[in-house]
């Protein structure tokens, strides 16, 4: 903090502003943020700059990248433009990733908050319920859900959300158990705050840092999960996604490396970006790494 005159108060800096200050100074975190920005920009602005339908057959099948000027990244086994697929497929993959993370956080935080705050019987019931979901093999369960119902993007996101919330619930629960015994919670109670006020307005804001980190990492995990399901041919065949591209191109891997490698590289960069941002946030929220 810069030197201030004696009578004045240092400018108020919220915990979030302070965390951003640390985050900004970490090269790897900023690299992750840049990667994500590029991917997001590409998927949102790409269709306007490169308006090719990813399902349209534009050239001979399995044309390698660089051979045709009009098709910079080549074509797949049906002669569809790979670059168009990468651009179009990004939005589906990201949408599933974010939606699944959102579902995970909603269920996980809700269950964890009540279990951790009330303890006792409520905790026992909610935690047994959580363990029931935790012992489900994630991939198998998601496959069952997707094959039983339509493999639409919504269902894929739901399936991923349902298998990954228990972890968030446990994390939230442990944070709530820790924070509910702190003095400022008793102080708020003594000032007349009710349970829901204490849960959502007092404890949750203080439990947020690890939850934000966990949410970020969940996005990365959900993207990988979506790719895995697509690879097995279990994602929506009518929506282009990176996973679908890998899935439909896997038989040609030995003849045409680019069909699988290019969407794979996009997934890699996106998940890397998300993980770096997650690590950066983790450091930014870690009080031991703060200088002051």
């Amino acid at each position: 903090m810069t030197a201030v005159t004696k009578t004045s108060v240092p400018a108020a800096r919220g915990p979030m502003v302070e965390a951003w200050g640390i985050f900004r100074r970490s090269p790897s975190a900023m690299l992750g943020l840049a990667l994500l920005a590029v991917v997001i920009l590409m998927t949102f602005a790409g269709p306007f700059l490169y308006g090719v339908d990813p399902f349209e057959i534009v050239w001979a099948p399995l044309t390698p990248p660089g051979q045709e000027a009009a098709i910079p990244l080549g074509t797949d086994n049906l002669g569809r433009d790979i670059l168009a697929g990468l651009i179009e497929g990004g939005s589906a993959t990201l949408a599933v990733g974010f939606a699944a993370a959102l579902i995970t956080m909603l269920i996980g935080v809700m269950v964890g908050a009540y279990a951790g705050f009330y303890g006792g019987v409520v905790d026992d019931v909610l935690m047994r319920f959580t363990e029931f979901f935790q012992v489900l093999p994630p991939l198998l369960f998601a496959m069952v859900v997707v094959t039983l119902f339509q493999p639409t993007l919504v269902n894929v996101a739901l399936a991923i959300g349902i298998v990954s919330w228990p972890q968030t619930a446990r994390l939230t629960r442990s944070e709530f158990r820790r924070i509910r015994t702190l003095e400022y919670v008793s102080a708020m109670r003594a000032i007349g705050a009710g349970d829901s006020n204490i849960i959502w307005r007092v404890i949750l804001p203080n439990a947020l840092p690890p939850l934000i980190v966990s949410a970020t990492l969940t996005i990365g995990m959900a993207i990988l999960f979506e790719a895995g399901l697509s690879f097995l041919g279990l994602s929506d065949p009518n929506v282009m996604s990176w996973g679908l591209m890998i899935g439909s191109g896997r038989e040609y891997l030995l003849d045409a490396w680019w069909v699988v490698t290019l969407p794979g590289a996009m997934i890699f960069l996106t998940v890397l970006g998300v993980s770096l941002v997650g690590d950066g946030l983790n450091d930014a929220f870690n009080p031991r790494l703060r200088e002051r």
Partner: protein
Amino acid sequence: MTQPVLDIRNLKVDFMTRRGVAHVLDDVSFTVAPGELLAIVGESGCGKSMTALSVLGLVPTPPGKVVGGSILFQGRDLAQLRRSDMRKIRGGDIAMIFQEPMTSLNPVFTCGEQIAEAVRLHQNVSPGAAHARAVEMLRAVGIPEPELRANAYPHQLSGGMRQRVMIAMALSCQPRLLIADEPTTALDVTVQAQIFSLLDELRHKTGTAIVLITHDMGAVAEMADKVAVMYAGRIIEQGPADAVLDSPGHPYTRGLLASIPRVYADPDADLPEIPGIVPALTDLGRGCAFEPRCPLAINACHAAQPRHVAMSANHSAACIRLKTGEVLA
């Protein structure tokens, strides 16, 4: 005589522990009149804080439970109130200041936001009005540049400042009763004096009654109207502050007063202390809880719980060695 703000009668609180039932509070009775300051003194673990928590209905249940007695606040028995009614009283009519100003404020909100939140919990006012009230309260507790401090986060303030913020928060809804649980334990001596004089000043300005839980006999002598001395969950002596401090009746009270360092005492002499420790509340015998440590103990002390003996008007102590109207030599 005016009706007391707080009238506690025969309050009993039990805790279920692994080693049996602990009578954390046993037969505690006292009254506080409007504008009056009652000091509760005693060693750690003697039930002072539990008395405060009982008044606010914050005894952790389980393992604790109010098993008997009544807590009359302006004529209503708090022990019988429904949760939602109790919530309106907490912070509204009765406020509490905690021991640790360093940890009693929520670190992610500014001081102004927290005071405003307390106001909005009890009064239907706009966010702007609540903020204005917060600034006004910060000024009332003597914080310089309250408009700026309202935007400061707790970690940007010193301990004394934070305790002032806590007091501002506690008084923001003009409570009839303020419970201060060792409000200065964590503070520097000079700041302690400031906080005490602030409390005293606010009490005279607003007419709020105060229950002050403290170890600081100096503060008791200076500010308190009445004193209650607690030992092992019971009030063993209570009365007007002057009477209790000048002519303590119970051997424990005398021990407490004797163990205060004095400026004019012989610097080479050892400070008197009370031998032994507070007994575990789970295995109290039938007799006087202080008997094992008491210099005046006789066989009869084992037999039964001593009753309060009146020493003068409103001044009584629970010791069988006392006779009515007498002060032991």
